[in-house]
């Protein structure tokens, strides 16, 4: 039996996928989820082979939900977004179904999935930053044990590289997330966040002082007292951003 999960905040939208799936007796719907939170839980619990995922959903969107899953299953997106936006990551999802979609179109997506199942499947990667939703610039979604936390970016002090992960330091806590520094350097607002070192990105509003350390090297002092080393280029970048 092939196990699948439907994740969409509109029950009627799920019902159409459910109806189309009746023609596939070898596929079992193990759960239906109303939002990304339920989705993350259901996926880690049931380890499905395939999921149908909406993008615009409460709290966290479909992309953010996928970020929280270490080994995501095969994904078919079901969305009302336009084709142009969806092209950006076409290559890495099995397929995307634009609402409203027909049974024929649905069957084609399933065929695609069956073909790809033969070869080793690749996890979904979002190819382009352009399709990221505006709300994603304002928040970072992290997993803390089995809880999902949404961190508003204005609460971030700095981000530090940590092997394959980054440590995100808020005013009170620290979170780990499997992402690269380059990702955050790109996706966070450049007026707000500056990469001052190969291993550090700081939030400008947290900065209180820049002090010389030795000849040619500087450190940044943050409001919380944290000291962040500045690389030569990082120091120069900081000076231009601050207009010094």
């Amino acid at each position: 039996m092939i196990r699948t999960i439907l994740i969409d905040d509109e029950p009627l939208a799920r019902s159409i996928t459910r109806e189309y799936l009746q023609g596939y007796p070898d596929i079992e719907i193990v759960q239906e989820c109303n939002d990304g939170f339920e989705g993350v839980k259901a996926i880690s619990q049931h380890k499905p082979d395939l999921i149908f995922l909406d993008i615009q959903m409460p709290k966290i969107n479909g992309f953010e939900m996928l970020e929280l899953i270490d080994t995501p299953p095969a994904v078919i997106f079901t969305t009302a977004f336009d084709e142009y936006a969806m092209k950006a990551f076409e290559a890495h999802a099995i397929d995307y179904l634009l609402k409203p979609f027909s049974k024929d179109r649905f069957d084609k997506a399933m065929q695609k999935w069956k073909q790809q199942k033969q070869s080793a499947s690749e996890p979904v990667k979002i190819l382009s930053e352009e399709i990221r939703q505006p709300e994603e610039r304002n928040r970072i979604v992290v997993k803390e044990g089995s809880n999902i936390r949404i961190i508003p970016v204005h609460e971030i002090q700095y981000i530090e590289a940590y092997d394959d992960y980054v440590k995100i330091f808020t005013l009170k806590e620290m979170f780990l997330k499997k992402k690269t520094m380059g990702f955050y350097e790109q996706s966070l607002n450049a007026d707000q966040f500056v990469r001052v070192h190969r291993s550090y990105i700081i939030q400008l509003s947290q900065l209180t002082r820049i002090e010389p350390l030795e000849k040619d090297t500087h450190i940044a002092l943050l409001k919380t007292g944290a000291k962040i080393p500045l690389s030569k280029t990082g120091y120069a970048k900081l000076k231009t951003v601050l207009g010094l």
Partner: protein
Amino acid sequence: MATLPKFLSSRLILGYLAWWIVLTIIQAYAITDAFHFTWEVALLDSGCIIFLAAISGQIMHNTVRYYQPSIKRSFHMIIWGIALAVLCVVGHRFIMTNYLIPDDSAYLTYLAGSYIFRGVFTWIMISMMGTISWVWFYFQDQRARESYEQDVAKLAREAELTTLRQQLQPHFLFNSLNSISALAGTRPEEARKMIQQLSDFLRGTIKRDNQQLVTLEEELRHLQLYLDIEKVRFGHRMKTEIEKDEASLTMVLPSLLLQPIVENAIKFGLYDTTGEITIRVTARAVENNLKVTVENPFDAETTQPRQGVGFGLAGIQRRLYLLYARNHLLTTRQLENQIFITEVTIPQT
């Protein structure tokens, strides 16, 4: 005031000068012919008065540039013209007797006998300048107003298109069609009903004039169509409450104003929380204003403190400003970090 192209303005000045020179020569000829003065005396006499008249004409031109009286008030200009003419005649006499031709008794006799004629002639010249200038500036104003009106019309059209685009959010449309598609399989009667609702809503959106004022009652009817559609999609977690007092129903507001505000509240409420939400719309008549508030829940912990009113509402704020030329007709506030309130105030005239 539109400025003239360079070549035109320099040609105009040349023509203007030539006109005065020709006039000087004609007048000088007339004087030599009638009174048998020498050409020198005649040219000095006529050159002096024409020069003064030219200056007065220029003064008149500049006066009209900044003050264009209506036909009723045109006597202002007539009086001003007479005053200038008198000044010209007095100035002419002063210059001629003191500097140019001080002791030619024949000339002085001629001068004393021609005040009236000279005055009337100068006055006619000055008035002519004034009239030409008045017409000139009138047409320039007209042209400026026309291009201004064209700009305004263009802006209005663009605004209309933008609202249309805002109203017919493709996302809303496609999701609604998807719901219909889902209903068509299992509950065809409901699918048919939703098609009806969506059609009525779209028709209401397309046919209405952006500038038009409608009663609150009518606007709420249109809003209800929208809410009914959204309830098919989100009825499992969204409730709506509409309260209004009797007096507010007949008050007027710009058409299609409430739906985008409610749409914004629904989006905010639905996507910022996961539980059940209530969208509350309240309309009250407060003195001579219609006040409508729209409430939606939000999560203070994950929502950034918002600067301004946010993108979805900025367009509505702009529209209200264009229509009523007043700021702060749309305001937002937060209640106990749980409820977000959008309030619009519509002045009644």
